[in-house]
């Protein structure tokens, strides 16, 4: 098992190098995307700052707490995109028949598809988000236990995000009719920009337990603020592991349905 992980890691590094050379070839695009992402983050925070300055916060959360939720959303979203960028181009590979080439290689197809294109633009934006996390988080004066729970839940969020990514690529194998499944996932994800409590009980529950965005983004932020009950921390890990297990099962099911019709 350790040998297999080491091998995957080596391949991941090679794929990362290839991805970096691709980015360096398109330097202008790299700079534009980086600027775009930073601009979007900066303006969103600016808007929220002026709104909360006037209203004092949103849905029983103070201004600094609400901004922290937003920063956590961006951090987790950026981290997942950085690692799982491959899912954005997967449908094209299925349509063009390129996926057959991946299947024929002595490497897990899922690993190649999900981890195949490391996103260096997100890597460059990450230090800014870490700084934003630090600056907005330090206003909330968390305890050491809160920070520990937060970090553990961040890892759990990545597990959930990976499960989502597996679900998206599996759906792309089953249906070719929709060309932006991944963007629908991204749009759903944006619902967690703000704490899911703002959507009211009904939608809030769906966003927490059905599409577990609440567990993925709202819960880690709440843990950092020390307002998340321990039973929800445990529940998050149960959800994370179950999602991982079910998504892998679904991938195997979807793979059996793949008919290689495009090649």
């Amino acid at each position, binding site marked *: 098992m350790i040998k297999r992980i080491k091998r995957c890691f080596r391949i991941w590094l090679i794929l990362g190098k290839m991805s970096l050379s691709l980015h360096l070839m*398109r330097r*202008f*695009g790299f700079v*534009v*995307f980086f*600027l*775009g992402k930073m*601009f*979007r983050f900066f*303006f*969103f925070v*600016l*808007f929220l700052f*002026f*709104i909360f300055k*006037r*209203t004092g916060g*949103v*849905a029983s959360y103070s201004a600094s707490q609400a901004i922290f939720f937003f920063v956590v959303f961006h951090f987790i979203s950026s981290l997942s995109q950085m690692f799982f960028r491959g899912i954005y181009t997967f449908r094209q590979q299925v349509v063009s028949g390129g996926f057959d080439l991946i299947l024929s290689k002595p490497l897990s197809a899922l690993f190649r598809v999900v981890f195949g294109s490391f996103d260096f633009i997100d890597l460059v934006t990450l230090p800014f988000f870490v700084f934003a996390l630090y600056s907005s988080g330090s206003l909330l004066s968390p305890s050491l236990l809160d920070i520990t729970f937060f970090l553990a839940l961040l890892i759990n969020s990545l597990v959930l995000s990976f499960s989502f990514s597996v679900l998206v690529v599996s759906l792309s194998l089953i249906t070719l*009719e*929709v*060309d*932006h499944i991944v*963007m*629908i996932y991204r*749009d*759903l994800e*944006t*619902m967690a*920009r*703000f704490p899911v409590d*703002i*959507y*009211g009980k009904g*939608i809030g529950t769906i966003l927490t337990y059905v599409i577990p965005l609440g567990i993925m983004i709202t819960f880690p932020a709440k843990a950092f603020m020390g307002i998340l009950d321990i039973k929800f921390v445990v529940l998050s890990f149960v959800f994370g592991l179950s999602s991982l297990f079910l998504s892998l099962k679904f991938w195997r099911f979807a793979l059996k349905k793949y008919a290689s019709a495009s090649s």
Partner: protein
Amino acid sequence: MHKYFQVFKLSLISEFAYRFNFILWRFRNVIQILVVFFFWNSVFSGQNEAVFGYNREKILTYVFGILVLRSIVLSSRAVDVAGEISSGNLTNFLIKPLGYFRYWFTRDVASKVLNLGFSVLEIALLYFLIKPPIYVQSDFLTIVGFLISLSIAVVLFFLVLFLVNSVSFWMPENAWAAQFLFIVIILEFFSGGIFPLDVLPSSLVSLFSYLPFYYLLFFPLQVYLGKVSYILMFKGIFISLLWLLILWFCLSKVWKMGVREYSAEGR
């Protein structure tokens, strides 16, 4: 004129060819609006007084107005022009007895008609589901001003989009990056597509009012909500018309230069 009517009809038919895809695209729009709706609903839940000049009724009308205005102003097929240029497919159009701008504007109109139809259905559905208070404008002159500013916004967006697409003539591999920066990021914020611009300090708002993006979504909605006086409404319409002329002038120049540069690579 007849040929453009045929283009309109064919565009509508082609949009219907991928129905499920289109419905999911609309679903994405609804999600985006729901996020903003619940955000403002939550901000105003314990508040009876006006914030940033909006009461609960006006801010929720703004959110729903954005859904409709996006369908009219921002829905467009002309985003594909960049791809046409970089793939060399532009050649097909250059040899046809067809006005290229008119062709894409007609396709845009077809897309807008379809999107508008769906957005009205979505609003009706959302209205019955969440029953938001909606502000209905009744002043005749304001409604006329709103319709004029909306028509200008449609043409303005078309010109901005074509200018951004023109990047393809010189940097075919980076057209998508330019679209991302201008159409997805800058335009979204500066047009008031995410938050109303007047939550920002007035000095910033008045600075933005000299940019064309301001007149795409924010200004028409401000007119509809009766948040600008008649004088400011006429001033806004005048500035947006001025932008229309400037952008049209720039586009004609850039397009001519671009077509001269174009070498049909990829054909």
